[in-house]
């Protein structure tokens, strides 16, 4: 029998560790990917993702089910990723090298579903352009592109209206288009 997220949360609140493990198994990959979108470094992202679940575990008794569990979890993840990024002293060069490493490893492990886009220069510049976005703009781009969340869900995670999400996405995309004008088709 498969429990819903809310049922698992209630079991966690009753002290059932197995229920929390099940929640982690459901969302660890997604949370990791969102954080990787911000930090662009696998090891740092792994640390922050684990810390995100630890923080969720500590706060889960205060979760009342007002929003969906993953919205609540993503809110913690986004805040932690933004904090980690602010603390990070990475230079653009280190950032780029980290991304290159990610590409190479991915090519060894599995085939890229978008393997027709092997323009390394475009990806490098895209990474740099994303990195230059403000935290708010980066968050909407990541949550929309990686997770495919609706504007309503993104608004719940970031604590803003759907209209604000739409506006932020519009301006974030405009900025990316300007920076990548020479590389986009």
């Amino acid at each position: 029998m498969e429990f819903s997220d809310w049922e698992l949360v209630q079991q966690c609140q009753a002290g059932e560790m197995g229920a929390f493990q099940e929640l982690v198994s459901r969302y660890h990959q997604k949370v990791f990917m969102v954080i990787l979108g911000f930090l662009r470094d696998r090891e740092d992202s792994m640390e922050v993702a684990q810390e995100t679940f630890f923080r969720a575990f500590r706060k889960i008794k205060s979760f009342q089910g007002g929003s969906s569990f993953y919205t609540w979890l993503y809110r913690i993840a986004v805040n932690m990723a933004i904090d980690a990024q602010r603390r990070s002293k990475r230079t653009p060069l280190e950032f780029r090298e980290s991304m290159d490493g990610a590409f190479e490893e991915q090519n060894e492990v599995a085939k890229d579903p978008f393997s027709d886009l092997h323009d390394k220069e475009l990806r490098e510049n895209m990474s740099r352009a994303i990195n230059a976005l403000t935290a708010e703009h980066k968050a909407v781009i990541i949550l929309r592109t990686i997770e495919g969340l609706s504007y309503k869900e993104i608004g719940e995670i970031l604590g803003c209206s759907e209209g604000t999400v739409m506006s932020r996405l519009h301006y974030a995309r405009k900025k990316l288009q300007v920076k990548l004008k020479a590389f986009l088709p």
Partner: protein
Amino acid sequence: MMRCDDISEVLGAWLDGQLRQSDAEEIRAHVAGCPSCGEERRQLEGLQKALRATFQSASTTIVFESFWRGVERRIHQKRSWYEDVRRWVRDFWAPPQMAWSVPIAIILLLLGMFTVESFLPGLRPRESRNNFAAVDSIDAFGRNVAVLREDESKTTVIWLYLNQEGEDESSGETSESGRSF
């Protein structure tokens, strides 16, 4: 009827499928007949494709068991209150969060200075603390004056004995007590 500028603002939301059916239909009809908006749509789709490719090319499948071990270790690890405070301070004092404190600190400093000036004048450092007073004899009768130097450019001379009668008496006293100002 929507203009091209209006369309541009919601084109991304339309491609994301986040508009109401009626709005989406109006935009679809406009874009189909407008070369400029059609070109913008093409560029936006290109950007979206490149964005997805960038994120997905960096994606990595992580092994749950090792991930869970890291979470479990954190849960069971006894963190001292010192560690919690240290983390809180580290997060709280990160420069972006503390940006608000700079103008507040300046305002508090100015308010503090104003308060000291207005209500506690005794606490204010006084330049006159460096002044000095001296008693000098300036004539043959031994009449004394107090010389008060308030600053480098201002010197006040105060005659200590003005009337003749008093002067005589005081002269005697003065001669006895000397320069006892």
